[in-house]
């Protein structure tokens, strides 16, 4: 069978995706698991690129790999996970876990299998020509056909953001904090006071030795 280049790329990324997804749950080190999850996203983005959805593919890398997973990694690195304790009860829960997994597999097959997404229900996507712009098409769809759901999603996100901030906000605490504007507005007159000092000796001294002496005298006066 002759493999086209696209098929080769597809199978390459799919294999990578499946293997890295498997490693996410198999690796013992949680940081490694997160890194495999990142690899998962990158492989998915490669698959989306094959569908000529270049905007979605790069946005996936930008949002999930570039921001979400960084914060994820942040949290995971702070955790101190005891692997032995977590393995406790593995065999006891295995039958239940298998049951859930198999049920999930059937539901998934029913949902995204042939009866909903088969070739009879949806025809295979045709190749777009070179002038096709994924961003333009996506924008048109979002701001015309799906305008209300799109705005609704934005409002929900806003509500979630307000909720998250109000959860962490613990009222105004009295604490010492800097007011940067105040610091910037400071002038010389606020900080520095120039005091006119009378010289102890009346005559003007020119040589360095007597200068030093007069300095010492000034110091003494200040001490007083």
């Amino acid at each position: 069978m002759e493999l086209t280049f696209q098929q080769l790329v597809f199978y390459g990324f799919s294999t990578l995706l499946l293997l890295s997804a498997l490693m996410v749950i198999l690796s013992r080190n949680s940081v490694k698991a997160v890194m495999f999850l990142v690899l998962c996203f990158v492989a998915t983005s490669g698959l989306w690129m094959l569908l000529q959805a270049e905007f979605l593919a790069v946005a996936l890398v930008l949002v999930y790999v570039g921001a979400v997973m960084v914060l994820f990694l942040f949290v995971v690195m702070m955790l101190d996970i005891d692997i032995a304790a977590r393995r406790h009860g593995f065999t006891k829960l295995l039958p239940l876990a298998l049951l859930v997994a198999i049920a999930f597999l059937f539901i998934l097959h029913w949902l995204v299998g042939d009866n909903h997404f088969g070739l009879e229900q949806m025809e295979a996507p045709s190749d777009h020509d070179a002038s096709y712009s994924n961003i333009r098409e996506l924008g048109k769809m979002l701001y015309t056909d799906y305008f209300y759901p799109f705005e609704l999603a934005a409002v929900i996100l806003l509500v979630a953001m307000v909720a998250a901030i109000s959860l962490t906000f613990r009222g105004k605490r009295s604490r010492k904090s800097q007011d940067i504007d105040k610091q910037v507005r400071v002038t010389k007159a606020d900080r520095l006071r120039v005091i006119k000092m009378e010289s102890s000796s009346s005559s003007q001294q020119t040589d360095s030795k007597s200068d030093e002496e007069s300095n010492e005298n000034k110091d003494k006066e200040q001490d007083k």
Partner: protein
Amino acid sequence: MLEWFNELMWILLKIGFILLPLILAVAYTTYAERKVIGYMQLRMGPNRVGPKGWLQPFADVIKLATKEIVLPSGANKPMFLLGPILFIGPSLAAWAVIPFDAELVLADINAGLIYLLAMTSIGVYGIIIAGWASNSKYAFLGAMRSASQVVSYEIAMGFTLVGVLMCANSMNLGDIITQQSGSVLDWFFIPLFPLLVIFWISGVAETNRAPFDLPEGESEIVAGFHVEYAGTAFALFFLAEYANMILVSCLTAIMFFGGWLSPFQGIPYLDAMTSWIPGTFWLLLKAAFFLFGLLWLRATFPRFRYDQIMRLGWKVFIPVTIVWIVVLAAWIKLQWWPFNG
């Protein structure tokens, strides 16, 4: 089969044509940095190796390459070695979409702008992994600082690029440049001036350069995330940092200063007289100006304190960009704007 192979070899050749000059440029940026900062501080800078110190970068490379790579005994070895690779990979990959002249670009993709943002944000994995795998508290602190800094400034940077996008009507870097053609007055730095300032400063913060070099703040955390690295592994971090600096300078030139467009465009006689100069020269000249600015910043400003960095990113830059995007949208919509909306 042979067709793929030919195409693959052709692409690899082009990559080589971009990377070799880039690595040479990195080598001489390190030299320029030491010289420029030296003269700014009334010193000579490197002047021993070769005439006027011209061979200093090669001496540095040979020294680093012949050193032993020390693997700390407590380190997670595969991750420790993965760190520098993850850092340098994206910083080189970003160069794929940079247009050096009208037709001179490796990958002319529609989502070029967002691809660049993605690449600059992936680089932070190298730092985090390096800091974590070193199993050293200084390295870990540096990694944490870097992660939060990059994520914060990326938001402001993304918003400035939204402004560029609104003016150019395209995410393709080549289109962004051609939209600016006409004369110097058509370059985006005039309508987008606040965004230019924010983009450039965010760029300095994203590349972890002074005065935002908290991740490697030697006064408190020794050398930050790369404290445990030696030899070639350290050289990779160094190379990637300077490649990122050149990238940010090039991007500033492309987004706001017309990329490879000649500054004499639209001036009657001067334009015809200088039309033989290739666009690449103008791009590199503009980029060199901003690169010099980065060195100048380093010689001038002391390092920020951490809370000051966070305040600047979240409380100053992000609100300013959002306001400017709204202003820009109003201008374009009400047709007061010279750009077609």
